[in-house]
């Protein structure tokens, strides 16, 4: 925390007094700042000067009818999100890039270009991000008037010929089908000997058009849709979405529902961390470790099944509470399974801290310095492994996290080993949280009735998914269908970290490094 309290809004109000920039407190989170295409960089610069922990969470592109909106959602060290709202005319949708000020926003801008059609002048590497290469140039899916039937796909461009450069450099393409990757993504590695010289990612293979689909389903149907953006962190997506709807509805969720939601969220985190910790073993050739971790992960899936009926996608959340109550008779059984799980932790902790082959493969591999983590807007255990202490559960408590005591885990080394150890320690904290929640489960209803039709309004919301901060922007227009659902997932923010740390490393270091940032490309591509 910074020593002196930074009152960002007063600073901005003072700086931009008398200009076209308007600061509107208490709008859309902490504040909304109305700016235009010529002043967006100035506002961001002012914020960066005032607070070094300023980071852009997401850039939303939205079709507002006559104009296209470009909203910059920004987080500072104090709680709350500040949104800079800019509108550009549809005939000439251009705006200056901010990726030189905040390198972590390069991907966000490419996505807005792809889906809404705003062009960012000065962007270092424009190109397709989530849409396929042969997508027609003039169709922008998130525009209201987009014609998505009978698309005329372009001819696939021929493979780019490499300029005759250094002959020692070999181009290796990792993916889309590769045993190291559970999901299809393509990384073109340029390798000299065994050293990686360059990494060019191509994502978008898992792009299913969720944001567009959300606009043609009702709010309740959308809960099931956003859950399936990612099967691993499904409860977090559902929670973030329903919380955003509840913010617009101004509904107060009963306390019992908040506790049950917390239990389901922490179960998500537990199974996801076990998954990653085991998967890391597989990447470094330690198959025994992988088998042991996944063997001990099974009880977590069983607990989720006891509570919600499903092993993976729990479908527990709904607008106004949770769908099912926890059966009081099940709680001792659940607590017994958690106690057994807790007993295995000292062994695993010792393995990750002391085991020589893990230290050989993970220590000083993929080191990300704290300043870079801040500049690239990294989130989650990846950031906490580099000493950046951000965690939405602490910074802006939601559900029952404000009432349940737990520690935020940070390590300062910044390498793969630190990131994995952050997750290892968070496992214990999660078990503590679940046990506390189950012990102190308040009585009362587990859901409240909410109106079918959501009044017009907008809301931003974030939760701490296992991989980091998950952000939703929701706009409603008074009908049964949302106007715009924008999702910014933690892996989307963390990919620049991987690119930065992979260059200059060995090929053999790329898999452990990659797993340590715990990528989830179905989250990234949506």
């Amino acid at each position, binding site marked *: 925390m910074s020593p002196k309290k930074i009152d960002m809004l007063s600073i901005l109000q003072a700086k931009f007094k008398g200009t076209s920039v308007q600061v509107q407190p208490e709008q859309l989170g902490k504040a909304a700042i109305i700016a235009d295409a010529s002043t967006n960089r100035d506002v961001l610069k002012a914020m960066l000067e005032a607070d070094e922990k300023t980071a852009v969470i997401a850039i939303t592109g939205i079709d507002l009818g006559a104009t296209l909106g470009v909203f910059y959602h920004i987080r500072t060290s104090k709680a709350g999100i500040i949104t800079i709202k800019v509108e550009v005319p549809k005939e000439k949708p251009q705006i200056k890039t901010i990726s030189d000020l905040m390198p972590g926003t390069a991907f966000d801008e490419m996505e807005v270009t792809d889906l809404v059609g705003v062009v960012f002048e000065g962007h270092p590497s424009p190109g397709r991000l989530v849409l396929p290469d042969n997508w027609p140039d003039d169709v922008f899916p998130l525009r209201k008037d987009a014609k998505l039937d009978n698309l005329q796909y372009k001819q696939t461009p021929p493979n780019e010929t490499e300029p005759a450069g250094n002959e020692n450099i*070999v181009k*290796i*393409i990792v993916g889309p089908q*590769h*045993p*190291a990757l559970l999901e299809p993504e393509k990384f073109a590695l340029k390798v000299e000997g*065994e050293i990686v010289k360059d990494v060019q990612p191509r994502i978008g293979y898992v792009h299913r058009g969720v944001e567009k689909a959300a606009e043609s389903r009702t709010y309740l149907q959308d809960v099931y849709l956003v859950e399936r953006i990612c099967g691993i962190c499904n409860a977090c997506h559902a929670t973030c979405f329903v919380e955003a709807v509840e913010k617009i509805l101004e509904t107060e969720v009963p306390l019992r529902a908040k506790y049950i939601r917390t239990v389901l969220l922490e179960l998500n985190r537990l199974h996801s961390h076990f998954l990653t910790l085991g998967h890391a*073993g*597989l*990447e*470094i*050739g*330690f*198959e*025994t*470790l992988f*088998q*042991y971790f996944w*063997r001990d992960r099974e009880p977590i899936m069983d607990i989720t099944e006891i509570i919600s009926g499903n092993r993976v996608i729990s479908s527990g959340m709904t607008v106004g509470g949770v769908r099912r109550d926890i059966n009081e008779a099940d709680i001792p059984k659940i607590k017994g399974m958690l106690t057994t799980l807790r007993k295995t932790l000292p062994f695993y902790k010792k393995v990750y801290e002391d*085991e020589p*082959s*893990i230290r*050989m*493969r993970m220590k000083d591999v993929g080191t990300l310095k704290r300043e870079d983590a801040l500049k690239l807007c990294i989130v989650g255990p990846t950031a906490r492994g580099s000493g950046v202490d951000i965690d939405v559960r602490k910074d802006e408590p939601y559900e029952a996290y404000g009432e349940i005591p737990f520690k935020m885990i940070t390590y300062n080394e910044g390498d793969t080993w630190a990131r994995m150890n952050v997750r290892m320690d968070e496992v214990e904290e999660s078990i503590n949280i679940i046990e506390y929640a189950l012990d102190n489960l308040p009585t009362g209803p587990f859901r409240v009735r909410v109106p079918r039709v959501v009044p017009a309004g907008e809301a931003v919301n974030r939760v701490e998914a296992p991989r980091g901060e998950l952000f939703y922007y929701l706009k409603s227009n008074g009908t049964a269908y949302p106007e715009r659902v924008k999702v910014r997932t933690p892996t989307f923010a963390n990919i620049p970290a991987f690119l930065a740390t992979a260059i200059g490393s*060995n*090929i*053999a*270091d*790329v*898999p452990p490094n990659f797993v340590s940032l715990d990528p989830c490309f179905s989250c990234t591509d949506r």
Partner: protein
Amino acid sequence: MVLDVMFVFRVLVFPGFTFLFFFTMFCDWIERKIEARMQNRMGPTFTGPAGILQPFADVVKLLTKEDIVPRGAKKTVFRLAPILSFSIIIFALSFLPIDGAAVIPNSSFSGDLIFIMALITLANFFLFLSGWASANPYGDIGAARVLTQFLGYDIPLFLLALAPAFLAGSLTISAIAANQYLPFILLAPWAFVLFIITLQAELEKDPFDIPHAESEVVGGLETEFCGGKLAFLRLTRDTQIVFGAALVVELFLGGPYGPVFFGPAAPWYFLWFVLKLLAVVVITEYVTCLFARLRIDQVLTTNWKVLLPLSVLSLTLTIAVATWIYPMVT
């Protein structure tokens, strides 16, 4: 006439090709069961009693698959290299005394230890060629890794193999096996331990299995192979393990010689050989399950900075033992 039939029987059936073929599959089953048990699983269970026919089913299935040769591959090398590497290893195995006499009777000659070490190097070289001929970037990297690894580790392996040679005063394997009044593992335990470690690297097993690192090089040098050729590549790998274990048995554990309780000696020798070999296979498989994979630069560092000096040291120590202590024992 009788001699000829015996010769053919020994070479083709027992203890020759057929026996070695099925014994390799048996060792493969043991390895898979150990690996599964170490990982708290069951391993192959339903193919034959306790899954013992699993490796056999794998080989038969591979032989009945369609054979695909990639368009850009160097066809002759692609087709021949897997079979050649397998054949060379079986050939090398036939010089080792399995039931008191080698597979090819009276085939041992002075210096055949060096000869079979050279044969192994040649077999590995053919493995490299098969990866190189595949026209696949992962095949190339896998092949390069195989080459780097076995060429590097050949040197300490050879130096360590010389230790028993000095103790027995001969470079002929059958003589080394026969002269072990005390198994050499007791006289030169340092050589045995180092030899096992170097063997892990030669056999490309964890922690030295980077040539087959699935997460980095997909299938390594095997990536483009399918069907019968893949079967031969896998068999090469498995037979190499049997060969390595057999070498350890001959050099350090007294070969097939052991107490004969009744009747003719040959079946007893065979039994001891098999038991000792299985013990070595079990040890190497345990080591495999316990470690993560080292990076290539760590593998090379281990070789040049650790194993090579230690093997020179081991040789010096063994010569000292051979000159002064061993004559006192015999």
